[in-house]
């Protein structure tokens, strides 16, 4: 069984936020205005967050999404098992099960889960631009990065139709695919020959807040000296 993971090289990241835009488009995230953002209602699954890293003179911009922890604090506290760790290591959210208590959003130390405060809205000009592979979430439930799980399902179906095994290049989330600086590498951490496994074992690799015991599967590579 695969353990999907993402490596982000902070030395290559330019902070262009193409990943943020790609994610919003791919996953049908509702439109935001400066007003909704100021009210704490920005819907985004990935976001650049300033983080003080040891040895750096200024805060680094960390592309932050769900860290897909192997010991996820959000899963522990969910009263209805609406959020759970699936066998391939993806922390998933079952929208029809979620009661909207927002306990998981509060238990997550990375604050990466978002809540649908209202019915999602898009401007008229964006009508018909939604991704048919991703459901639009109703108001009142929590949502989060899924590592573009719908792409995994589609890739697996394509591979099965072609009568072959899933190849590493078949399944890549939108953020990793779009990154113009090639700072994001996605793959199977349990495969010792994969690029992600090699990078995750390197000297520059670290997991953010790993001291909390969350065991994230998003691995960052420190900026060079």
């Amino acid at each position: 069984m695969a353990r999907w993971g993402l490596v982000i090289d902070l030395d290559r990241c330019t902070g262009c936020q193409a990943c943020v835009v790609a994610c919003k488009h791919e996953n049908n995230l509702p439109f935001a205005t400066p007003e909704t953002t100021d009210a704490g209602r920005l819907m985004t699954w990935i976001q650049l967050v300033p983080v003080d890293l040891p040895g750096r003179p200024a805060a680094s911009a960390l592309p932050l999404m769900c860290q897909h922890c192997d010991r996820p604090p959000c899963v522990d506290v969910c009263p209805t098992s609406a959020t759970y760790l699936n066998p391939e290591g993806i922390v998933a959210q079952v929208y029809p099960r979620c009661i909207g208590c927002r306990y998981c959003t509060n238990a997550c130390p990375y604050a990466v889960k978002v809540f649908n405060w209202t019915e999602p809205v898009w401007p008229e000009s964006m009508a018909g631009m939604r991704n048919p592979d991703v459901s639009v979430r109703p108001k009142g439930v929590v949502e989060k990065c899924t590592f573009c799980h719908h792409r995994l399902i589609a890739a697996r179906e394509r591979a099965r139709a072609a009568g072959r095994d899933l190849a590493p290049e078949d399944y890549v989330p939108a953020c990793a695919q779009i990154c113009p600086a090639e700072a994001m590498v996605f793959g199977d951490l349990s495969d010792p020959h994969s690029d992600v496994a090699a990078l995750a074992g390197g000297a520059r690799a670290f997991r953010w807040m790993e001291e909390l015991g969350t065991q994230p599967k998003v691995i960052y590579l420190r900026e060079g000296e």
Partner: protein
Amino acid sequence: MSDPHEPIVNAILTVGPGFKRWVAALTAVVLWAIFAYTWQLYYGLGATHLGRPVYWGLYITNFVFFVGVSHAGTLISAILRIVQAEWRRPITRMAEVITVLVLMFGVGNVLLDLGRVDRAFNVVLHPHLSSPLVWDMASISVYLMASTIYLFIPLIPDIATMRDLTTGWRHRFYKRLALGWTGTPKEWHRLEKIIGVMAIVVIPIAVSVHTVVSWVFAMTIQPMWHSTIFGPYFVVGAIFSGIAAIITAMVVVRKVYGLERYLTEEAFNNLGLLLLLMTCLWFYFTFAEYLTTWYGHEPRELAVFNSKISGPFAPFFWMMFVCCFVVPFTILCNSRTRTIKGTLIASIFVNVGMWLERFTIVVPSLSNPRAKVMTFVYWPSWVEWSLMAGCFAAFALLYMGFTKLFPIISMWELEPAPEVHETAAASEPTLHPAGATS
């Protein structure tokens, strides 16, 4: 039959114009809150001013506050019953009613806070046992059941008295609820036994309830929530606000129904002393909690600490400190100010202060998350304030309704210490245990 407790019975059977005016005003507030809730159901929780990362606000504050106040009745009445404090006799009933009613509003506030209240039953259908919210649901429902039984059982002899005093619909109503009580020595014996058992059983349940409420916060690893003393700290705060709620209710009931004969200075003085003890305990726990956080200097904990001591939440924090410690301690440690008026003032301050304490536990930790995502200063919306007002108004209405249906002071318990057991063979069934001994 002539009734020795005419003022108590009169309070039930007469409805004055003042009562009607209050009912009208409170009903208006409740109707407004229903409108606000409909609004929230339509627009979603976007009708609140909650956002990321302050996902919980006024509703959860009220939940913790109401569950805390619910420790008024059952716990205090049970402890006083067990230690056989005679002065508790006229006050246990009105305390137990607070417990049952307020607990419903505690649960209600969690429901108000749900994004999908239509799916609330998922917690029963698909419970995830490692979630403290599931523990909470379990312990609160047990507590609600136990405290309802604990309220109802001692009511039975009084309901029977009312049955014999009334006619019409009231008679039929009381007859049904009296469960055929005739007052035989055997019945008295059984009643005393059940009350004795229930008084012991409800204590661990009550302690578990507020411990588990605190664990909703303490089980996460969020700064200033993840604290081992949260369980006992919340229980102490709960008893503290509970006693204050009893005193407030006592003063109102005493004044409105003219029950000065029953609710004596002595009871207020004793409850005032209990409140003083809890004031000191509250200070001790708060001091221990904040000193260890400050001394440890862990940056994330300190960020929350500073936001409370000198940051945006400082007005709430220091007002809480004045309300929960400075005012009640000053009033209650002096026997000259520990009067009915004095304990009332102290109690109102304690209730306000304990609400502020719940607020400064819930909101500042969420406003200072570990990850520096964009944050904002939370201030509740009109919908949230309206629902809070509605909860208090609905509580007052239900409490007033109770006083018009049942004796707010336990009449049979006012008789001198009953000795029914020895004279179980006494021939004539009577309504009062004292009568059974003669």
